[in-house]
């Protein structure tokens, strides 16, 4: 049990530090790699929650497929290192409006998160001890295709729409 707690802090630290490194980098390739490290930390947390299927799918889809495409695009476009912008050196009160809106949204998100977490019952008293209701892959598939059929199919339609949209936008015009 002590070992489990230790692993929780290790994986938690890996995912938090990885996520911080993603936005703390000037070099886009390093950002991509830091995000992959963060995904591995999350995957470890899923294993601790006794959800090995979710853990592996996290690696296959995010770290294995999506991030390879990210890396591919960053390398192919040869995105340069980000230099410090003009406004980066200016006084916080005299910066242009996009960063201000960003800061506002970030504050809003933090407030929402604090509100949601404060309302979650049983936080900090061993959520990991409650075993998940659905753990085996067979059971997961059955639940997904019976109880949550509608949500599942709607999500798939949403993804297809996004895919068709991307293809339409990227297609070369005939004329």
């Amino acid at each position, binding site marked *: 049990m002590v070992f489990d707690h230790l692993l929780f802090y290790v994986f938690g630290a890996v995912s938090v530090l990885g996520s911080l490194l993603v936005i703390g980098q000037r070099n886009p390739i390093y950002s991509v790699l830091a995000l992959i490290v963060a995904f591995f930390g999350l995957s470890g947390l899923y294993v601790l929650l006794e959800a090995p299927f979710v853990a*592996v799918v996290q*690696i296959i889809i995010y*770290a*294995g*497929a999506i991030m390879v*495409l990210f890396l591919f695009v960053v*390398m192919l476009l040869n995105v340069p290192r980000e230099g410090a912008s003009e406004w980066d050196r200016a006084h916080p009160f005299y910066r242009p409006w996009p960063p201000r809106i960003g800061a506002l949204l970030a504050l809003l998100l933090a407030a929402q998160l604090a509100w949601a977490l404060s309302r979650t019952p049983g936080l900090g008293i061993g959520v990991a001890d409650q075993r998940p209701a659905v753990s085996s892959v067979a059971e997961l598939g059955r639940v997904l295709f019976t109880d949550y059929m509608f949500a599942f199919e709607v999500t798939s339609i949403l993804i297809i729409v996004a895919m068709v949209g991307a293809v339409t936008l990227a297609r070369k015009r005939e004329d």
Partner: protein
Amino acid sequence: MAGILDWLTTPQTIFFLAVTMVVFVSLQLSAAVMVYAERKVSAFMQQRYGPYLVGPRGLLQPIADIVKLMFKEELKPKAADTLLFAAAPVISAIAAITAFAPVPFGASTTFFGLLPEPMPLMVADINVAVLVIFAVTSMGVYGIVLAGWSSNSKYSLLGGLRSSAQMISYELAYGMALATVVMIAGSLSLREIVDSQSGYWFGFIPRWFAFINPISFFVFTVAGIAETNRAPFDFPEAEQELVAGYHTEYSSMRFALFFLAEYINMVTVAAVAVNLFLGGWHGPFIPEAYGWVWFLIKLAALCFGYLWLRWTLPRFRYDQLMAFGWKVLLPAATVNLLLSAAGVLYFGL
């Protein structure tokens, strides 16, 4: 402290550590054996002798190669990214070795009665083993892509880009072939998949999935060759156009790590194919407890097939590779998946 010591000295823990060490060491030895076999097989096919000076019949040639590589100078291009340049070969090697962890290579054993209960001959008995192998294999592409980018050389970069495009294209067909087997066996655990292939039809045809679903076996083998960047799909390192592809700028032990990863990947793909399609450790004449002998025989046969292909087929053209992957292999795998699903549903395969 005493608790940890007790845990460390139980027969199960010692057996587990021993199996892990055996797998780790024999994977690296298998790379040496494969290098020797490749040189001897290619020599046989081209009517040459191959290595014959170091040791009897040149058997010590791989060791001589490794010693030579260790004493070579480590070169690094001036404009290379130091951290990633060093990390790329390590990522490749780690992914290659880790992928073998959930692969069983023998029946459960009590090891001559030394263990209180039978334990499977594998490093990690995971219930989503097939997916774990798929995930770890797809991590291998990072080693190649990062090597290509961090070298800061156009040959390396093109090799890395080609490799990622190739691996993404063939992973789809590879995953479809895996899904077919998982569906027929009704399990994601490699141990259970192997066990569902025991027994015979009419007393002599083994119940291998390769016979139930030959298309899936073909797709898996072809996609496996493409995933491991072997000829005739070895575009990431096509000499005529790209010098040596992603490892152009690597020398000494860093180059050796890429080499090691390539051969270990080959062995792992062959081992997974043996477990998924050729009945793993099941076979006639040899008692169940020595099933690993059958596993090794089947593994050697598949690895020989790999070498045979490389030295008889010319390399594809790059557009042929992409057209084959997307227009032939993927549709075939998809139709096969649907047909197998119908078979499982209506005939209970």
